[in-house]
């Protein structure tokens, strides 16, 4: 994919509203057929960026190229995209057919051709035979499908989805998520979706653009983003991440309390305080005192392990989440996810002592101070 020229290229895109900087120097390439998610907390600028791509807002600086054409200064009506909003924005006084046909009619497409295209589109989004209903007579999920059909009607090169699922209830959301993704794959339409829902981004996107405070924090596949978050922000925004205060020692590892811990490569200079990050599910439990010689399941190479105590345990359905304290942790607590099996096998419960391991390939270190 990376070999071909990008379908959409953003360079140095900035946007400020008065003294407030909504976007700062955004650069991004999106390839043809790709499904990209803009993910971030509200106010991070993701919707503004989407609207700039659509031409609904004009960037304060920067350039946008779509299919090799500089579209930076084009009004929305001269760009090539379809858009779906969180609110659906269906025309309430027009029935489903007329909504979907809205753009086609205006383009002067023949009546029969329009009708056929509308029928196709409705079938595509799974709403055949609903054409004569009015939006108010449809459920939220159905309305959003109509909005999708309408956005696709003009066969746009780029499909923009602005939080399309967030107004729907959880079940419909899950279902529609899957459908949109498979539809996108089938049509091969380059798609950008804005969302604040990490699960949505992880399941739907080919690549995720994590944004915060108007800058791109990280761009990568869902797995990259999850496994190798480049910053504590990304780590925390996607999934749960323990963040423990530590100090970088001379060997490239860190000191957590008195304990030396091996970790992934990082760029923090030695002697500085830093953040040790590890996901709860990456914490490995061992029997109590597993580090000490003579313990029943003694660990041969006891690197990255320490003793801890279960302060609290929460059952979350498929696993338990335990809150651990320990001497090396100092004031901080460590969250660890234990499988039901492990809990049963090791008899884990609140108050229980155990040894935990932080596997070096899962420990990341970031500059800064853990809060």
């Amino acid at each position: 994919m990376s070999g071909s020229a990008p379908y959409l290229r953003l360079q140095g895109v900035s946007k400020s509203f008065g003294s407030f900087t909504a976007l700062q120097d955004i650069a991004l390439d999106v390839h043809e057929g790709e499904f990209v998610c803009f993910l971030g907390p509200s106010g991070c600028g993701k919707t503004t960026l989407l609207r700039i791509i659509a031409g609904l807002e004009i960037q304060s600086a920067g350039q946008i190229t779509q299919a090799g054409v500089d579209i930076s200064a084009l009004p929305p009506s001269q760009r090539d995209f379809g858009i779906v909003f969180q609110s659906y924005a269906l025309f309430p006084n027009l029935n489903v057919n007329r909504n979907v046909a809205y753009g086609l009619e205006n383009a002067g497409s023949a009546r029969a051709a329009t009708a056929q295209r509308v029928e196709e589109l409705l079938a595509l989004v799974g709403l055949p035979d609903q054409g004569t209903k009015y939006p108010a007579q449809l459920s939220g999920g159905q309305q959003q499908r109509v909005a999708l059909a309408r956005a696709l009607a003009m066969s746009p090169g780029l499909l923009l989805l602005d939080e399309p699922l967030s107004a729907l209830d959880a079940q419909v959301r899950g279902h529609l998520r899957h459908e949109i993704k498979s539809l996108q794959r089938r049509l091969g339409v380059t798609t950008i979706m804005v969302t604040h829902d990490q699960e949505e981004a992880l399941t739907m996107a080919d690549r995720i653009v994590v944004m915060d405070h108007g800058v791109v924090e990280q761009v990568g596949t869902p797995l990259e983003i999850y496994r190798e978050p480049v910053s504590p922000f990304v780590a925390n925004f996607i999934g749960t991440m323990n963040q423990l205060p530590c100090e970088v020692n001379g060997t490239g590892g860190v000191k957590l309390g008195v304990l030396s811990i091996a970790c992934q490569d990082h760029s923090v200079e030695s002697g500085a305080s830093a953040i040790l990050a590890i996901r709860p599910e990456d914490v490995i439990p061992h029997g109590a005192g597993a580090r000490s010689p003579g313990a029943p399941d003694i660990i041969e190479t006891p690197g990255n392990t320490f003793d801890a105590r279960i302060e609290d345990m929460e059952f979350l359905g498929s696993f338990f989440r335990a809150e651990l304290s320990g001497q090396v942790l100092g004031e901080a607590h460590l969250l660890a996810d234990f499988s039901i099996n492990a809990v049963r096998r090791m008899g884990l419960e609140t108050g229980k002592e155990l040894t935990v391991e932080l596997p070096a390939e899962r420990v990341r270190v970031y500059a800064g101070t853990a809060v």
Partner: protein
Amino acid sequence: MTDATLNPVSNRGPRARFNLEAWVMRGGIAIAGLFLIVAVILPLYAMLSKSFEDKDGAFIGLTNYVAYFDTPSLSYSISNSLTVSIVATIIVITLAFAYAYAITRTCMRFKGFFRLVALVPILAPSLLPGISFIYMFGKKGFMRELLMGEPIYGFIGIVLGSSFWTFPHALLIMITALSLSDARLYEAAEALRASKLRTFFTVTLPGAKYGVISAIFVVFTLVITDFGVPKVIGGQYSVLATDIYKQVIGQQNFQMGAVVSVMLLIPAVLAFTVDRLVQRRQVALLSARAVPYAPKPSRGRDIGALIFCSVMAGMLLLVLGVAAYASLVKFWPYNLSLGFTHYNFEIMDGGGWGAWFNSMKMAGLTALIGTTLVFTVAYLVEKGQDARFGRVVIQAMAMVPLAVPGMVLGLAYIFFFNNPANPLNGIYATMAILVLSTVAHFYTVAHLTAVTALKQIDGEFESVSSSLKVPFWTTFRRVTVPVCQPAIFSMAVYLFMNAMTTVSAVVFLYSPDTNLASVAVMNMDDAGDIAPAAAMAMMIVYTNLTVVLIYGLLSRLVEKRTQAWRQR
């Protein structure tokens, strides 16, 4: 890829390419701004500057104002105006609150009927209650004993008349305020065993606080700026609104008229500003999760409410009925046989039946042009994406007319449009200036109606349309207007009825060719032809009633036909 490397990325914002839509939008906003500047701002400026000039147009600073305050017969009107306005406001607010309470918070019967009857005064010019009161409380009035010898002409008449015609305005606000309250608060109060009275003072009143405050300012402004009631029944009790008329029409002293206008403008603007400030604080108080309150039956309270509302409704209908009756009596009080002689307007002052036709024409044009204009401007302001500054300025200018009394606007129009140097001088003394002034006079309420309706529709319609390559004007026509149709209808009816009843601005602007029914009422009353004045006032009522009925029928019909989408 190559493109990007060849063209260095500019660090300036892109210069938008020519875009017809954006230019149409900007042009529309510019025209809207220009319209409001010409129709509202410049005339007011002309009026203000006139108050600092002598008869020959030389600037003389505050001399006119000094003269004003040195003439007790003039400056005395300030306290007169304030007194009647405050007293009438207290009366109307109390009654309207009780009436609204009965409608929203009891299980009284015939609520729909009472709600409808209370709106009757809106159909009539404010001159009408004055005329009716002459027959009710005048020297030969059949209810004069109620006043115990006090004359109806003056303070009492103005207060009563003002109370009559401002009642529905206060009531509508109160009903809205009282309907908005949250049932959960009452449940909480009940759970905490608060007494009924305590609940009223701790839950009901605070809940309706902003509505009450708003109603207070609305009624106060309506009364202090009203010209009709004091003109007919004010006797020698001079108030600011009638002073403007006396100075301008009676003595053609335009400079002093401008000074009095400023005196009237001050309380109106103050009331408006304070109300705006208070209302701004309201927003956070209303929770979207509130549960609407549904009253439970309570025999004593419901019967009390029924009696109160019956008395009130009876009085409102009586005032209207008296005018209707008076217009038919041949020679009150000496010949009580009935007939239509007073409807022979041709032999009276005021322009005859032509005045009524003119009024119809004026009201129709105002409704048509006004609604189109106000709605389009509101659309541009609300949905426009460009020219932010321009839109903010237009929004602010659109609020100004609410604070400007009709008399002041009318006088301002004389100054501005009757200036031979004004290129628009040609519309002076024509139907056009009447329509323009009336649209401007009632602009704000229509504008707010349109904005409210527009705010309720999805903000992304324009974005969707442009993504579908459909220009915004097509979406405006195909979607926005049909969706807002109920609001558009009610704007048109509002403008029509007000154009039929208004006297204040147009009294300075009508010409022999463009006599109006409402002005004719005033002129006939002025000439002592009170019965024909009542007849013409009733013609206005009948006209408005017909329009309201047609509106009701039409909107029901149209709703059935085109608003199917509203049904689930």
